[in-house]
């Protein structure tokens, strides 16, 4: 028995075996392309996370994807107003499967201190969220923790989770059609 990172393998003379879905999951987890949807102070902390001191590129995330079409991970960092809500949902719908969402900071998770008529009270009211990072704003270490939790999800989830009934039901509860990713 051998190991690639935390992936169990069977080793022999000149070969190393594992299952394909685990190898794909490992590759995916170490090459997640994030789309930073940063609107306020959490975005500043995210910039620090990307900077050389904390260096998110260690996790295969060197490339920020500023188009949703080529992004795997939507990082929502900051206050989302109700007016911005449909924009965020469109960005999410434009991302290709497989896709994950990281909600950074109190505002994105729950509306935060902005208990007011104009602020969306948590992005999970319009799009499904995989990992929540609390804090106001969270420190870069916390954001990295959130990203690593996303990696754990990527490694352990089925490669074809979009075909699962649970996933269809989840997106259906947000009025998103799984077959074309568009709003119903």
């Amino acid at each position: 028995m051998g190991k690639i990172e935390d992936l169990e393998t069977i080793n022999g003379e000149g070969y190393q075996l594992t299952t394909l879905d685990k190898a794909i999951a490992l590759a995916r987890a170490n090459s997640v392309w994030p789309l930073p949807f940063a609107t306020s102070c959490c975005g500043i902390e995210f910039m620090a996370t990307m900077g050389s001191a904390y260096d998110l590129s260690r996790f295969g995330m060197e490339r920020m994807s500023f188009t949703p079409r080529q992004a795997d991970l939507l990082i929502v960092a900051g206050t989302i107003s109700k007016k911005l809500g449909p924009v965020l949902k469109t960005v999410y719908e434009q991302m290709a499967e497989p896709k994950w969402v990281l909600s950074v900071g109190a505002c994105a998770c729950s509306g935060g201190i902005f208990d007011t008529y104009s602020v969306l009270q948590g992005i999970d009211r319009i799009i499904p969220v995989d990992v929540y990072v609390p804090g106001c704003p969270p420190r870069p270490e916390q954001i990295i923790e959130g990203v690593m939790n996303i990696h754990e999800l990527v490694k352990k989830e089925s490669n074809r989770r979009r075909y699962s009934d649970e996933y269809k039901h989840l997106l259906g509860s947000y009025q998103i059609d799984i077959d074309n990713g568009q709003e119903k």
Partner: protein
Amino acid sequence: MDKKNNQDYLAAIQAAFSADVLAHEETFGILNVEISTAKIHDVIAWLQQEPSLSVNYLTNIAGIHYPEAAGREFAVVYQLHSWKNNVRLRIKGYLPKEDLHIATITNLFAGANWMERETYDFFGIIFDGHPDLRRILNMDDMDYFPMRKEYVLEDATREDKDDRFFGRNNNEL
């Protein structure tokens, strides 16, 4: 060059529009003039075009709601600035809540466009003649004017807030 001061401006406005200057005062060095609402557009146009005054810059337009003041519940405040004389002016006009119409000044200052949209968005004051008077900051399907003092600060009937996160309903935690 002799620069004009607040008193010169007040005297000039009173000389040109004596009947329409309803009140005036000076607060923190800024001249406040209340003008009858129907004449506000003409007064600002005259201030802008009079060479000796040359009020050439519109700093801001704001709305105010005075729910207690019968017949003058809403105010529109124009903050103006003359770069030539370095004098700032505050022009106020009051509106009754039944008739929230006032003439646009977008034909005088192009920058008034978004300011008037914002004032409409938050107070529902209608600027007659505005080229595109619709909401600017709030979502389009909002059906009220949020800066009016008509709403309780914390509305217990709101459904868009998850009370569990804010210690209002401890039973659900």
